[in-house]
């Protein structure tokens, strides 16, 4: 289903706007989906998340987060293996082993206390690690910021998610609802920050998403990016040496 959405978006290149950011040729359509997601978020998701956060002690929300985090560790391990990071992948499975047993089905993250650190991997990052470019930026209905590569990655993530095996249906749907509610509740502070910090939330969120994914693919150590404004390798935008306003005047004629 989600793959279909991505494919349709790929075909919809006709609606590319003029004078757009080269990373975001579908900005017009993306802003439409963004507005839809936003109204869904304001009227439904945020109120539920607030109620949830108000009703449950932080300690209990930690347990819920740990439980779902543990379910994700085996596939994080698989992704690390697919990226050739065998040691990290092995320890993701060690985490799953300890947390599922001693940690009582994952509600206690005992592995982190033992020094086995949690990793952040998914199929979008694996595709990126293999060299797939992000492609155009996309806003997916309900799921939010993505791009073509990560959209396909998210499709694979969902397809192989162990939560799909849970029976009966009622239990599985309830767990999905709990998982999303917990994630949204964790993001309440962040979304308020976004509201305060951004002049244009769409642009701010898009740029943050693209920067964040790039950083994740390089596991937090991306090479420095050349600025689009800079010319012929002279990186003007990144590092103008300014200590006072007056001093910079001298540079005015330079670039």
């Amino acid at each position: 289903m989600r793959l279909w959405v991505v494919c349709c978006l790929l075909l919809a290149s006709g609606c590319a706007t003029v004078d757009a950011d080269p990373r975001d040729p579908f900005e017009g359509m993306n802003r439409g989906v963004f507005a839809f997601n936003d109204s869904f978020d304001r009227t439904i998701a945020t109120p539920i998340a607030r109620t949830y956060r108000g009703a449950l002690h932080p300690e209990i929300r930690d347990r819920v987060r740990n439980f779902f985090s543990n379910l994700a560790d085996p596939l994080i391990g698989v992704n690390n293996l697919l990226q050739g990071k065998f040691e990290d992948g092995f320890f993701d499975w060690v985490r799953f082993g300890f947390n599922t047993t001693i940690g009582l089905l994952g509600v206690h993250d005992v592995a982190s206390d033992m020094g086995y650190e949690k990793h952040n991997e998914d199929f979008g990052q694996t595709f990126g690690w293999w060299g797939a470019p992000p492609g155009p930026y996309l806003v997916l209905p309900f799921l939010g910021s993505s791009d073509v590569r990560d959209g396909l990655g998210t499709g694979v993530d969902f397809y192989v998610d162990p939560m799909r095996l849970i029976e009966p249906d009622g239990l599985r749907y309830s767990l999905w609802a709990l998982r999303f509610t917990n994630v949204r509740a964790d993001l309440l502070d962040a979304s308020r920050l976004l509201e305060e910090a951004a002049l244009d939330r769409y642009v701010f969120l898009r740029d943050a998403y693209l920067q964040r994914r790039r950083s994740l693919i390089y596991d937090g150590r991306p090479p420095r990016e050349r600025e689009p404004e800079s010319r012929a390798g002279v990186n003007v935008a990144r590092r103008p040496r300014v200590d006072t306003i007056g001093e910079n005047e001298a540079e005015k004629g330079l670039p």
Partner: protein
Amino acid sequence: MTRVFLLLLAAALAAAAPARAADMPPDVLVKSVTLEVVDLISKDKEIRSGNRAKLIGLINDKVLPHFNFTSMTALAMGQNWNKATPEQKKRLTDEFKTLLVRTYASALAAYSDQKFDFRPLRARPNDTDVTVNVRVLQPGTQPVPIDYSMEKTAGGWKVYDVMVGGVSLVANYRTEFANVVRESGIDGLIRSLNNKNRALEGAQEKK
């Protein structure tokens, strides 16, 4: 007994010669400022119960002196910085500073309870541009890295960018700023930053 004596000696020395920020290595500076601010917040009932003005005052006193806002604004403006007059530069810097401090205050209010992991500095002794890595530890998620880009100035080490989870704050404003400048010029950007700041101020007074 010797340990007690040594501790007393250390305390006496610390009191007699408080390390000046200008002499501190960048990683020590980040650690001491972070711990001091988090400690002050945890002891202050008014800030904990949501007194945003007091928190902003605390940030102005303790954190601001270690930031180079002119550098930050210049980086966020990119090439448009050189098109601005000195007066515009000053106003841009002031408005951007107000916005960043307010955002920083909200972030601190939300996350000051977390545990911090201060990473050892990886730099050569005579480097003048370094990155100080701190990580925020939360149960059930990967630690969130906070990287401070710092440069050495006559007045000590100053922060010119903050990266949270791989997202550079300064780079993230670059597209927004460029868009506004393209549509309504540098004065338009000053206006929209000013409107934003006043709207936030109004919203907080209402609370």
